[in-house]
């Protein structure tokens, strides 16, 4: 399940919903990405996230389908926000549910790595001195995504 939305989400509520009324799930892994006050040596006061409506949905659906093909997953959820985000607020949520713990871990890790390098979102940071800075691609994200190439 994929959701792209402006409003904040509640990680706990999303996790609860995934396992509600089910007794076949053995493991649930969640990843929550948050707006933090410091990045690459800059003090941050907030974020603006731009995305490419339409393409974002397509890319996230492809990434989710790929994870279900690679691992035994009973359910998954990807939520990504756009718009203005305040410090400490959640940006992205990935949840995976599986009978097996390593499948849940690996799939969540993979989803985040691919999402970071494929989903058309762009972050700009408000810095403490009043500027807006477009965040640059990280080599570490490219390397992380490359791990999953078959």
């Amino acid at each position, binding site marked *: 399940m994929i959701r792209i939305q402006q409003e904040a989400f509640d990680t706990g509520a999303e996790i609860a919903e995934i396992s509600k009324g089910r007794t076949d799930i053995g493991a649930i892994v969640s990843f929550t990405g948050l707006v933090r006050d410091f990045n690459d040596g800059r003090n941050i006061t907030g974020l603006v996230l*731009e995305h490419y409506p339409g393409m974002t949905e397509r890319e996230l659906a492809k990434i989710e389908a790929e994870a279900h093909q690679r691992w035994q997953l009973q359910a998954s959820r990807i939520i990504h926000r756009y718009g203005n985000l305040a410090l400490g607020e959640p940006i992205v949520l990935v949840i995976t549910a599986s009978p097996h713990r390593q499948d849940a871990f690996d799939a969540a890790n993979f989803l985040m790595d691919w999402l970071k390098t494929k989903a058309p979102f762009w972050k700009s940071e408000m810095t403490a001195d009043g500027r807006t800075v477009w965040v640059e691609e990280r080599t570490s994200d490219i390397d992380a995504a490359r791990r999953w190439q078959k």
Partner: protein
Amino acid sequence: MKILYFAWLKTKLQMNGETLPWAAERPDTDSLVTWMQERGPAFAEVFSDRDVVRIAVNQEYIIGNTPISEGDEIAFFPPVTGG
């Protein structure tokens, strides 16, 4: 053709996008980029380094030169930084 710009491309070009007629002189993405580079100073700057401009045709990433036709949605954007 619908052209879209995102992130700092949008900021530098001061527009979200535009509609361009299909033209025989730019039948594919490579020739479209060359045409953009010769369009004026802001475009020249934005399209100067091909390595930092990603292209999607009809909401799919393209790798290498790709033919374009009337009705296509062509998006230009920097490497993604979500998550």
